[in-house]
């Protein structure tokens, strides 16, 4: 069965369908229905995935533009699979969370939800592409729905934020386009199929230039310090739902691209640039955390925490050990859930009070205990408390990095402590203390909002205690990726485990 095409097809048809529905309420229910169907289909696909089978599964390949060597070719390995699952899980949650977002903008509700489904199709496509050109097409095209979601439905500074978002990403994408063209030309294979291109560029100098073309695009997308400045604006101005998809999924395309394309296509250059990338990542971890502490706007604060977290992910990718790579991949998924929960709950709070500023709140916990409680759990997951899934991934990244790079691992660990400061201090200022006059009558989460938050919290807890199902899928894929670099794990310093056997 062409599972991946079906997933995308259902989303696209759903997007068209939404625009035809005349009634706004019906349109929302329709969107929710479509996104749940996509979720069900994706789960049906995922259970058939065999982690130790072929590298890419559910593959489809058709000629798209033979004149240019371009194919419509899709397929997933473990890494892409979990990221697609992340996307399709988040979309129905975001749809439910955005139930009343569009009215606030006094703009077309149907367009908003239609854009969301278009975006879903593109998110699936970008992770599933096994043709570099197709990947590029999705990589660029997915900017457009997000641009309209931020620009039309966002906060007061929305058009500034939307343009900044679009231009940063477009600029990175265009640099990547040059690298894509050069890759095709230099490889001389007449095809853009990713598996055929692996290992074709032998010259190290060429690799370095092409690596930079791809890497800068991904670093802007991720975003890595110092390319991050668009993210706080975009995330703070976007409606909460769009912010979740932006930070939770779209930005992952950057780190996914580093893992998939930079490492496999340009292994020597990746090794050459590793010190640089690790330095940028570690700076990002600490810088993002420190700047987050200083924020007065909740959404900007969450955005900066993400800058810090993306530092961890990039660190894990470029440490090039199995543990770190698997940890980074798991981190991409967990970060989607934890930041998603934070953004959505913060969004609920902001919608109630009409202000993004921390200083306008205080003592919310007394009037809205459920909201405050779930906010705390989401916050704790962001600071990687053991028992929540983010702990597993952060720990794996740090351990995996430590195996090779002691000092960066040590500095990165301070990020965990700083995380405790920015999360708990924000919680303290908004939720504890005397109840502020303006929040005295805030209602607690209603049934719909509880339904939004519950699955996210559940996922964070389940995978916190039992990450095995995800890791079983991720591990072989990461091993496979690193073996084509090739990067081997350093031998354990202590041989206890072997001797015990």
């Amino acid at each position, binding site marked *: 069965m062409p599972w991946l095409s079906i997933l995308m097809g259902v989303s696209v048809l759903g997007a068209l369908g939404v625009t035809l529905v005349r009634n706004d309420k019906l349109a929302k229910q329709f969107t929710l229905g479509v996104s749940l169907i996509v979720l069900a289909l994706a789960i049906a696909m995922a259970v058939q995935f065999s982690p130790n089978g072929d590298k890419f599964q559910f593959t489809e390949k058709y000629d798209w533009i033979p004149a240019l060597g371009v194919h419509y070719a899709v397929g997933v390995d473990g890494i892409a699979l979990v990221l697609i699952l992340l996307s399709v899980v988040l979309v129905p949650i975001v749809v439910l969370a955005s139930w009343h977002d569009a009215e606030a903008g006094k703009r077309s509700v149907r367009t908003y939800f239609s854009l969301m489904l278009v975006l879903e199709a593109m998110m699936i496509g970008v992770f599933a592409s096994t043709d570099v050109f197709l990947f590029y*097409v*999705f990589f*660029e095209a997915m900017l457009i729905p997000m641009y309209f979601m931020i620009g039309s439905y966002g906060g007061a500074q929305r058009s500034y934020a939307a343009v900044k978002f679009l231009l940063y990403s477009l600029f990175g994408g265009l640099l990547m*386009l040059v690298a894509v063209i050069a890759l095709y030309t230099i490889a001389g294979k007449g095809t853009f199929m990713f598996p055929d291109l692996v290992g074709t560029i032998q010259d190290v100098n060429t690799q370095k230039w092409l690596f930079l073309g791809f890497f800068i695009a991904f670093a802007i997308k991720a975003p890595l310090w110092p390319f991050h400045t668009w993210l706080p604006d975009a995330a703070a101005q976007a409606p909460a739902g769009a912010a979740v998809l932006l930070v939770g999924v779209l930005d992952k395309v950057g780190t996914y691209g580093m893992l998939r394309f930079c490492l496999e296509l340009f292994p020597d250059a990746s090794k050459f640039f590793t010190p640089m990338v690790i330095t940028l990542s570690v700076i990002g971890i600490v810088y993002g955390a420190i700047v987050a502490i200083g924020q007065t706007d909740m959404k900007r604060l969450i955005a900066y925490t993400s800058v810090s977290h993306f530092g961890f992910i990039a660190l894990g990718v470029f440490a090039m050990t199995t543990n770190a790579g698997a940890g980074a991949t798991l981190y991409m998924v967990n970060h989607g859930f934890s930041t998603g929960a934070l953004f959505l709950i913060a969004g609920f709070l902001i919608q109630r009070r009409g202000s993004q500023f921390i200083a306008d709140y205080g003592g919310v916990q007394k009037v809205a205990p459920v909201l405050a409680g779930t906010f705390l759990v989401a916050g704790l997951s962001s600071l990687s408390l053991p028992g929540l899934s983010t702990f597993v991934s952060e720990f794996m990244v740090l351990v995996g990095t430590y195996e090779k790079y002691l000092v960066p691992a040590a500095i990165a660990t301070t990020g965990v402590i700083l995380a405790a400061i920015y999360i708990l201090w924000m919680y303290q200022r908004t939720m504890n203390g005397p109840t502020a006059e303006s929040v005295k009558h805030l209602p607690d989460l209603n049934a719909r909002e509880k339904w939004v938050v519950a699955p996210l919290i559940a996922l964070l807890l389940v995978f916190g205690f039992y990450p095995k199902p995800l890791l079983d899928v991720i591990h072989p894929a990461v091993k496979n990726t690193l073996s084509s670099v090739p990067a081997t794990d350093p031998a354990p310093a202590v041989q206890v485990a072997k001797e015990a056997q």
Partner: protein
Amino acid sequence: MNGTIQAPTLEYAQLAPMLVVFGAAIVGVLVEAFAPRYLRSAIHVPITLLSLAGAFALTIWQVVKGVPTKPAAMGAVAVDGPSLFIWGTILVLAFVSVLLINDEDHFVAAAAAVPGSAEEEQALHEGAGHTEVYPLVLFAVGGMLLFPASNDLLVMFVALEVMSLPLYLLCGLARRRRLLSQEAAVKYFLLGAFSSAFFLYGTALLYGYAGSIDLAKISSALGVVGGQETLLYIGVAMLGVGLLFKIGAAPFQAWKPDVYQGAPTPITALMASGTLVAAFGALLRVFWVALGGLDWNWSPVLWAVAILTMVVGAILAITQTDIKRMLAYSSIAHGGFLLVGVVATGAAAGQNSKALSAILFYLVAYGFTTVGAFAVVTMVRDAGGEAWHLSRWAGLGKRSPLLAGIFAFFLLAFAGIPLTSGFFGKYAVFQAAVAGGATPLVIVGVVASAVAAFFYVRVIVLMFFSDPAADGPSVVLPSRGTAAVVGVAVLATVFLGVFPQPVLHLAQNAAQSLFIR
């Protein structure tokens, strides 16, 4: 030698598309002379459209019959693969533009009347019109067909003039903002005449060098004739000035914004699509057929011109407040991107045909999107005619989401976002350039694209993210012609953006034979 003159052999079949267009133009002039005023428009429109469609059919027939391998008309006109592809493109674009021209009262009632005078008032009142617009357009289109197909420099010069003179006139016929329109016509005429003179002088110098104005003979004289290099270089430079002027490449771009702004919008659409296509065809022919062996000399200059054109177009567009001026600078920037393709020529035939097919595809993609964009411009109006000031477009997305959505789509295509035709055009050209070793030029190109994206996106921001002004412009209900134009442009932009294969394939086939000598 008894003084008889040998009649030249003419391959009428090969020249048929041009003959049809020119013939219809002459019929149009006769209609102007003899038909009563109230009938003229009703006669002109079918003649014009039918002749363009007929010429298109003849072009297709020519392709089906087999592309000629030898120049026609005693070596004066080369009807080869690229020519036929360019003809097809120009004819379709002209057909679409005529639908726009036909559509509304874009043209002045009495061009001779002083703007704002009683005579003008009276002419307006009587419902007078300039129906000679149609034959003029046909003459211009005929010139556009001949221009890229001419195989010697003198025919090319004649084609250049046949194409340009009617356009000078047409530019001055706008119904509204008449002074601006007349200024545009004068500017275009003076600068155009100046550049024609350059072209002609260049031709003369090249004749002095090679002893022939035939492109192929000039090519074979290169390197053989010694001691005359000064004539050659100055001649090539002057020829280049004439051709680059028509493209609007920097530093010869100054006329473009003024003319695009002042001309009646349907004429702007015709110029922005048809003239650009024809001029690029001619530029390619001259530089490859005649001067291909000299590329060590002109290639660096074209590098500089391409960079300058992209940068000037992209940066100056940012500061524009008039929608038509903005589109003019956008057209300059796109001319720069196309020049990247021209630079991408290499010694190998494979590389040449690759670059050529990329340019041909780009021209088709850009032509349709441009006509569509100008068609949308004609529909957004306020009391004084078209709402030209960008600020008037604020909030259009709320007022008429469909039209604003279509315009936004065209802008995204100009910006080269994937899944639009513009992306594949740019991609093909850049790929050819990288393969031809012009990677630095491509990097400048993508940076310019990013800058250009900014001003396209700015218009989208205005239309969708700003609140509409209280007395904002209204969108007129499009006539059937305009609606058809917009529809065709949207379809072409989507189709070429999603399934570029058929047209790419066609362009590759056309380019395979290269230009014949």
